[in-house]
């Protein structure tokens, strides 16, 4: 291995820059999971009876399930009795009405993460809901959005203020019985974001949720629900980080999206949970179910994700293309370094006629990490004239990492056109040397090559986010790439 590659290796194993903890008093419940715990969470959140029943049903179903093992991931048995299922910063037991009432420690935490909650300080154009451990601590720009009839608030708030909407849509895209982690989340979900765009409304700003795990030994189980009525449009951003800890933390979230006739939802994620150290100690286990339903004709749901964090990633943002002429898109950059493992991809379920989907997945593996793409394109019998295009590219840095592709195609309609392309390449010594000969040092060379590799996906991110994501890629690669 050349010196450059070694340098890259070392850099990849850099310190995680968001690894600090916030010293704040937290209201936690004892470790462990039981019906009583589910009841306690529901009570703490002052929930209506129907929701408690819904949670209990999910919990009972979860008890009948086993943790899935089919992914290309290695991890020890998770002891679900050793996790804290509810942790809330004490000051926000009752969500403050104004930011002046938010604990300054919390504000500082988010300032440090680069998220200013003071609206006047923020760049205009992004409203943000921030969730720390199990609860939302603040949501900005709510009143401006309300003028257009847009609801953007924490899930807890939505349950209190808009119970009918929540009840109507919760679990309609990801049923509580969907899978092991979905059932678990349905039983114990604590907070998350709720977003409702009424008919014909174009959301005038980006909506954003920022998730932060702080409490030790706690799991984070947030739930996000986005409903875009006919003709509505919204672009949604999600970011996340966690402190550096030696124990693994569990994150099992659900995101549900519904798009009506001619509605469009763009969902972008920059996932940067703590990845653990270079030997695989600590880090977040990220088991997430994300799914969108294009229920109306000409509707469109687009997932864009930049995944650089987590010790383990298990995540397949999917689209059910039910409405005729609906469109599903999945753009992904997954970067794994150190001992990280990612098994991520998408599912495109074509049900309506003339539906189209596009999958662009870019996996970058460094260190001794394992990076897998797993995707399903399903064409139902009645889905006439379906089109799908998938492209899965892998880039390897060094010779100890792995890249894997598991594409599944199921077509029950012979008018469907399904295309799949895949490539695997390595950053070669030749490429590095070429860049160096032009005056770029190894680190800049790798950043340039990786940026080029991920370009098609990055171009899909909203401007502000793209810059952040590009920086994140470069930082994540520091010391791991030569």
């Amino acid at each position, binding site marked *: 291995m050349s010196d450059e590659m070694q340098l890259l290796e070392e850099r990849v194993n850099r310190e995680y820059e968001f690894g600090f903890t916030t010293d704040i008093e937290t209201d936690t419940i004892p470790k462990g999971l039981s019906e009583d715990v589910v009841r306690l969470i529901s009570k703490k959140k002052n929930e209506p009876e129907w929701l408690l029943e819904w949670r209990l049903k999910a919990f009972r179903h979860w008890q009948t399930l086993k943790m899935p093992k089919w992914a290309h991931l290695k991890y020890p048995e998770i002891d679900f009795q050793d996790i804290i299922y509810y942790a809330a910063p004490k000051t926000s037991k009752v969500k403050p009405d104004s930011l002046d009432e938010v604990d300054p420690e919390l504000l500082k935490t988010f300032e440090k993460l680069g998220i200013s909650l003071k609206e006047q300080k923020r760049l205009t154009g992004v409203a943000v809901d921030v969730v720390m451990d199990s609860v939302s601590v603040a949501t900005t720009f709510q009143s401006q959005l309300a003028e257009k009839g847009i609801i953007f608030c924490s899930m807890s708030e939505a349950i209190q203020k808009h119970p009918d909407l929540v009840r109507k849509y919760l679990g309609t895209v990801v049923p509580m019985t969907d899978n092991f982690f979905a059932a678990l989340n349905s039983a114990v979900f604590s907070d998350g974001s709720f977003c409702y765009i009424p008919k014909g409304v174009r959301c005038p700003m980006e909506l954003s949720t920022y998730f932060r795990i702080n409490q030790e030994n706690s799991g984070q189980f947030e739930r996000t629900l986005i409903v875009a009525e006919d003709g509505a449009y919204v672009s949604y951003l999600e970011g996340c980080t966690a402190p550096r800890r030696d124990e693994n933390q569990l994150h099992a979230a659900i995101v549900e999206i519904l798009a009506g006739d001619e509605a469009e939802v763009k969902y972008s994620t920059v996932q940067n949970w703590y990845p653990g150290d270079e030997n695989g100690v600590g880090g977040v286990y990220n088991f997430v179910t994300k799914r969108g339903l294009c229920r109306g004709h000409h509707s469109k749901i687009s997932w864009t994700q930049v995944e650089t964090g987590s010790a383990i990633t298990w995540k397949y943002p999917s689209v059910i293309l039910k409405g005729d002429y609906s469109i599903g898109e999945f753009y992904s950059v997954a970067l794994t370094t150190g001992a990280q493992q990612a098994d991520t991809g998408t599912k495109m379920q074509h049900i309506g006629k003339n539906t189209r989907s596009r999958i662009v997945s870019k996996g970058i593996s460094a260190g001794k990490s394992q990076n897998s793409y797993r995707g399903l394109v399903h064409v139902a019998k009645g889905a006439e004239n379906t089109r799908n295009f998938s492209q899965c590219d892998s880039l390897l840095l060094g010779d100890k990492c792995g890249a894997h592709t598991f594409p599944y195609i199921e077509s029950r309609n012979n008018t469907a056109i399904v295309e799949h392309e895949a490539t695997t390449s390595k950053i070669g010594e030749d490429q590095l*040397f*070429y860049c160096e000969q032009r005056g770029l040092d190894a680190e800049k060379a790798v950043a340039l090559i990786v*940026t*080029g590799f991920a*370009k098609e996906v990055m171009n899909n991110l909203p401007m502000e986010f793209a810059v952040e994501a590009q920086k994140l890629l470069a930082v994540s690669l520091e010391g791991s790439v030569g």
Partner: protein
Amino acid sequence: MLSIKNIHASIEGKEILKGLSLDVKAGEVHAIMGPNGSGKSTLASVLAGREEYEVTEGTIDFGGKELLELSPEERAKEGLFLAFQYPVEIPGVSTTNFIKAALNEKRKYQGLEPLDAASFLKLLKEKAALLELDKSLLSRSLNEGFSGGEKKRNEIFQMAVLDPKLTILDETDSGLDIDALRIVAKGVNTLRNESHAIIVITHYQRLLNYLQPDFVHVLMNGRIVKSGGKELALELEEKGYDFIKEEMQESLTA
């Protein structure tokens, strides 16, 4: 500008250069010729700083600095440019962005501000015209899907933009048809000036017809065995390398 003294270099334990010495002054064009395996490309790699090559003996002075102590990127920023025999492809990075990054790194090294967008584009346009490079190539991924001729012209184009003190053309003529050869030679000739030295590594006379080198050196078995003016290249073309081998034999037995 460049003074190579008694360089020994090996790769994977095998010695390729065995005491090579060469002096190149600013403004001069030197051609290095020699049979396959004589060490021509090794010389290019050693000058550019490819780390697979280990220099076991000798010194190389480049504009008053010891070249061997500089990293490849420092050498580049000091003004050493290698036109690669096999330019690599970098998907997703346009030629424009690549050359911009390179140029700004060099300017930073020289204590200059990055070039503003308008001046940069003007510079690109001017140099692209010189190499008859289609503008669409500049927005395409670097070397991806370029023809052999386009790749070589792109190398000379980068040289033109980066304005080096010393350029090494490593078999730039290989794989070029006659038109591409003419364009490349024209580009190089335009950039020939008093402050720019050029080392042309080649197998054949034909590029030298266009470039008219000041000196021609024959490299054999890791050493320069014969030097002369441009007429030496013609002689080689006519007689092959064998006559030099014979000459060497004679001088050994004499």
